[in-house]
């Protein structure tokens, strides 16, 4: 028994020593970056590289407010509770001035809620959930990447241009999949009231039974298919669908399917002729800002950028611009800095909206094909996010009153 207590005390003491050892604050402006570096390594890796590339550029150019910008990266193990703890540590102990990061929407929402409660500023860089800026939106949270709604609306616009009348949807059975299907249905029905959704398939996330899903969709004989599956589920769905001829003569719309993180693992079996959102890093013309970023990235790291790289890069750009505009690093100034902020980025100028804190970063929409043994997007177009957001009245209704 006595030993037990001693053990506990030792632990507590170790914790105290740890606190004493925390480094003297250097004269930098620190940003807390929380992500699932291990759990989602394929996405968080390129994202981090994008951040580091931008940091180097920002600091070479003299930093912000005369100080170097510094990111402190922390792994949350993919657990929201852990992320909240780390956020507190970053803000209270590491001296960060604001928070950013996360890919998974649930963790984004957890940090966003903490941000509002504690008065921390949080830029949700990658999470897609609409509710981050709408139903659960708050004064302290901003979001960079084009949301589920925006990207689904872009695909719905494309889908409305064809004469397909009956649609099947397939989406992982959880919040993101359901949001993505609801947004697509809403946007498409608005554009083309006579469409009919003949089947909705909801495979369990990362546990897809692809053969069965393909059979179930085939049975409904839709004109077109809307796909939200990703990762390993997407690979299995594409393979079974191709083998069984599901995609023959059908138009398929794939949310995020064109992102290199998802398309590359499929190699030469990448689906052809799908209309997708993604990131055609290989196809930018010389002289443009997109090309400049891609070249700089490849020169620096010797590997292709993913969509995560772009988002990471733009995260730093946005934060640097906001701090510069704010002129100070307290929360109120930063909020003022972000609201209505315009940032020059590789994809062009983006704008952080005052009404819902959503940035107008858009998405690339194009058609998939296989070139040199890898899936690529062709005939793509960059669609500005500003054009795919609901009206201001609608947004005002969605956001909770303060």
């Amino acid at each position, binding site marked *: 028994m006595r030993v037990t207590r001693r053990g506990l005390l030792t632990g507590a003491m170790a914790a105290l020593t740890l606190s004493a050892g925390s480094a003297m604050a250097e004269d930098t402006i620190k940003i807390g970056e929380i992500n699932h570096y291990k759990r989602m390594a394929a996405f968080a890796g390129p994202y981090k590289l994008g951040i580091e590339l931008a940091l180097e550029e920002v600091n070479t150019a003299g930093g912000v407010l005369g100080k170097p910008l510094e990111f402190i990266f922390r792994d949350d193990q993919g657990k929201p*509770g852990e992320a909240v703890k780390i956020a507190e540590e970053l803000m209270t102990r590491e001296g960060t001035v604001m928070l950013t990061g996360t890919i998974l929407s649930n963790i984004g929402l957890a940090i966003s809620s903490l941000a*509002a409660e504690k008065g921390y500023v949080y830029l949700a860089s990658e999470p897609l959930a609409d509710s981050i800026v709408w139903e659960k939106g708050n004064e302290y949270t901003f979001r960079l990447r084009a949301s589920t709604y925006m990207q689904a609306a872009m695909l719905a616009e494309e889908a409305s241009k064809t004469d397909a009348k009956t649609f099947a949807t397939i989406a992982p059975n959880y919040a993101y999949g359901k949001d993505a299907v609801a947004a697509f249905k809403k946007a498409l029905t608005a554009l083309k009231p006579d469409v009919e959704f003949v089947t909705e398939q*909801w495979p369990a996330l990362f546990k897809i039974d692809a053969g069965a899903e393909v*059979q179930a969709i085939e049975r409904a004989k839709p004109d077109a298919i809307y796909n939200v599956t990703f990762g390993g589920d997407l690979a*299995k769905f594409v393979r079974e669908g191709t083998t069984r001829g599901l995609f023959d003569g059908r138009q398929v719309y794939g949310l995020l399917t064109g992102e290199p993180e998802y398309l590359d693992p499929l190699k030469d*079996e990448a689906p052809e002729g799908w209309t997708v959102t993604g990131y055609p890093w290989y196809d930018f013309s010389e002289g443009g800002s997109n090309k400049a970023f891609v070249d700089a990235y490849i020169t620096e790291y010797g590997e292709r950028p993913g969509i995560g790289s772009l988002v990471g890069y733009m995260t730093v750009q946005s934060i640097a611009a906001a701090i510069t505009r704010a002129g100070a690093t307290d929360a109120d100034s930063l909020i003022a800095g972000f609201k209505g902020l315009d940032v020059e980025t590789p994809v062009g100028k983006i704008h952080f909206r005052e009404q819902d804190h959503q940035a107008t970063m858009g998405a690339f929409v194009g058609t998939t094909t296989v070139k040199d043994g890898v899936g690529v997007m062709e005939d793509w177009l960059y669609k500005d996010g500003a054009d795919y957001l609901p009206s201001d009245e609608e947004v005002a209704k969605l956001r909770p009153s303060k």
Partner: protein
Amino acid sequence: MGLFIAQLLTGLANAAALFLVASGLSLIFGVTRIVNFAHGSFYMLGAFIGYSLMQVLPGAVGFWSSILLAGLAVGFIGVIVELLVLRPVYKAPELFQLVATFGVILVIQDLALMIWGAEDVLGPRAPGLKGVIRIMDEPVPKFDLALIAITPFVLFALWYLISKTRVGVLVRAATQDREMVGALGVNQSWLFTGVFFLGAALAGLGGAIQLPKGGADLLMDFNILASIFVVVVIGGMGSLPGAYIAAVLISVLNVFGVAYIPQSTLVLMFVVMAVVLTVRPYGLLGREEVAGEHGQVGEPEQPIKPAGRSARILVLVFLIALACLPFVAEPFFTILATDVIVFCLFAASLHFILGLGGLVSFGHAAYFGGGAYVAALLVNYADAPMELAFLMAPIGAGLLAAIIGWLCLRLSGVYFAMLTLALAQLVWSLVFQWDEFTGGDDGLVDIWPPDYLSDTTVYFYFTMVVGIGGIILLRHMAHTPFGYALRASRDSVRQAEATGIHTKRIQWLAFSVAGALAGLAGALFVFSKGSVFPVELEIAKSFDGLIVVFLGGVKTLSGGVVGAAALTLVQDYITRFEYWRLALGLLIIVVVIIAPKGIVGSFRALFENRLGSAGDKPTGGTQ
């Protein structure tokens, strides 16, 4: 009709990998009584190794030999794991080995990331089997047909091995009566190693053979875990034909579930399992578990006494020191301490039934998360004040535990554990998929305490009072007649029943109490984090609880709390490093090997040995 047949064939093909992996798990459990959590990791390794081999070996011959070689390679990895990690801890208390296998999971996760990188890999197609065959006009992939043909062959080969060869006789004997094998003059450890090889090889084969239907990724280890546990339990622990029937049943039902009730994915499997176990508590082809009649395996727990005066003073001093924390340390440490206390209460509640009751719950997160969700739902929908939410959380979680406990306590031992796991997964999948009500994966957010508690320091004191209060309550209960009756029910059901103790009722009540206190921990959690998500109900969370209770020491009163505090602090520190999973996994394995009685138990043993050598045996007495 054509579609029906095609769907049936899809189900049968899906059953192949599932059966291979599950049969390995079943075999390992049947002979060694080890619940191998790392079995999913063997499956993942099989997929990655198979993939790498297929890049090198060309053609159809290369393809199929890659699969076999992947199986062999994973088999040898299994042997390494068995020799280095498990062999040293066979003598530890029952199920302690699962902690070691959990360490193996973490190590393999990081090693796989180092070797194969973060990106998913797509499995190559089977040469010569790329197309489809039309059966009644329905396309059926050729590879599916190959899988359907191969699986019964594997089943037959295994059946032959086990029922017709000398090795098989030994395996069967070991499944039924381990001591008999020793009596037959067979080296038991050799047999264990062999079975581990076979079980791991089957998992590896399963991973490699599914490559043409998908690929390999770093999440597949955990993703298959629940399914194979379900298959093994439905089939009957240790029964290979049972595993086959269950794999087919689950896979075929799943195909029809997808077609006719698409929302049912995830939940269906657990419903099937609950139904089967209600009708046949030991699975389709399983036998009633022949458990030791009296108490736990290994050294019995030492008698307990309430803490003496000096110990109480020490605890008091410690608590005062803890209460001073906000004055001496940075604010973050009060947050960390809050997390530690919450997890300690969770662990203590699990320890109450696991240690004192001998009831191994693999699904304790259901009550932690359940309590958190009860509180969050009340706040979210009824705008309930925190005080009410705090009251209802343990009640709700306790009720959930009462229902699940009632269902599970009809079984015992590992069947009990597996059923708690399955029902906890059922709760998880309901919360995960019912997003209209629970918010699904996006959870419930903005659940913060009222102003008077919103300061982190104040909330820390609140957590201290409630959390440590809960721990002390549990500890006190251990010393009361109820706690004694619980231990009596664990030590000897026969004796307890023969002296008027309704053991099931005692256990059921204890299970509910443990659930309620886990729910209390959940309520503390949700108001400290401001949000709750389905991850709080996940298998991984339940495993966290099991790990700390075993690491701390099952057969000591404070094991759960010490283990929880130690792991939270270590984890907080270690996750700052790049390959923290590798480090943490190795650390767990090392602790398991050098301290098989858990941290507290081993410290105590060391302490007593030292006293003993000084000539003052604590159990001296009358001898």
